[in-house]
């Protein structure tokens, strides 16, 4: 499931699966926060890479330089 379609699911599922949350008592706030930042950070990274790839697809000279710098791993770069 895309965590950005259902943010609550992305938090609840891994905590429940790993058993790291104290579901009967007070929540482990630090652990909860780290879990919250996990999916969103990864999502942002993918979005950033996709956006950079779109930029390179739009401007040929920038694409040439990026290739020269071996930044070809950016998704969409060859589009």
């Amino acid at each position, binding site marked *: 499931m895309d965590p950005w379609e259902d943010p609550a699911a992305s938090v609840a599922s891994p905590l429940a699966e790993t058993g790291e949350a104290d579901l009967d008592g007070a929540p482990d706030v630090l652990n909860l926060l780290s879990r919250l930042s996990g999916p969103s950070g990864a999502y942002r990274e993918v979005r*950033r*890479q996709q*956006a*950079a790839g779109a*930029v*390179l697809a*739009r*401007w040929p*000279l*920038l694409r040439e*330089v*990026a290739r*020269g*710098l071996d*930044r070809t791993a*950016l998704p969409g770069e060859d589009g």
Partner: protein
Amino acid sequence: MNLVAVVPAAGGVGATTLAAHLAVSLARKRRLGAAVDLCPGNALRLHLGMDWQDAAGLATQIAAGHPWSDGAYVSSGGVPFLPFGQTGREDGGARLAAWLETQPGGLGGCLEQIRLQPEGILLADAPRMPWQLTRQALARADLAILVAAPDAASYAGLPALLEGVAAAGCAEARVVINGFDPRRDLDRDMALLLANDPGLDLAPVMVHRDEAVREALACKQTVFDYAPSSQAAYDFEALATWVVARLGHRSRQAA
């Protein structure tokens, strides 16, 4: 002693303008030791109110065999600075580089002698690589500010500059985008591309494109005096604050 070198990624990106305003802002915070212009274009002085016809400066003094420190000035805003000088010779930069190598402490040693604030930051406005003067500045610099416009010319020039920075052994280099206009597609794209490039570190402050900067120079002022409420004035101030914080952080790490 902290030395900050300001180096352009390409021609016309506004590195001297940025260096001048950074110097003024640091001086206003009482954190500037001195600024020196290592560019044969000799333009830093114009931002600091020096008379256009005044040819004096570091290279001029050396070429004439006079004490180099006599070429130093203090602007009306309290910025101690050494202009490059108008030598009228094409090899003025190379001669200056050769002379500096003979001095105790090189470039850093010379700047040390003219700074007013005991713990002040020394700021060098350096020309594009591969100038010998720029290599000297980068080798001594605690922080290099690589000035890039949000355009393809800067992006194409950055790889060579980054190689030069690494070869000189510069402690830390950060790219600062200068002249950013959020209304322009290419500016937004360039900012995104630079922010996502794993091979370079982008400073957390960028300077927006602001007509007040050009008008201020035409009026022989800085934007701090000409348009103190302008976006550029705010950006330069933020950049100076970040530089002070960054150097402080590095000092604490080294201690």
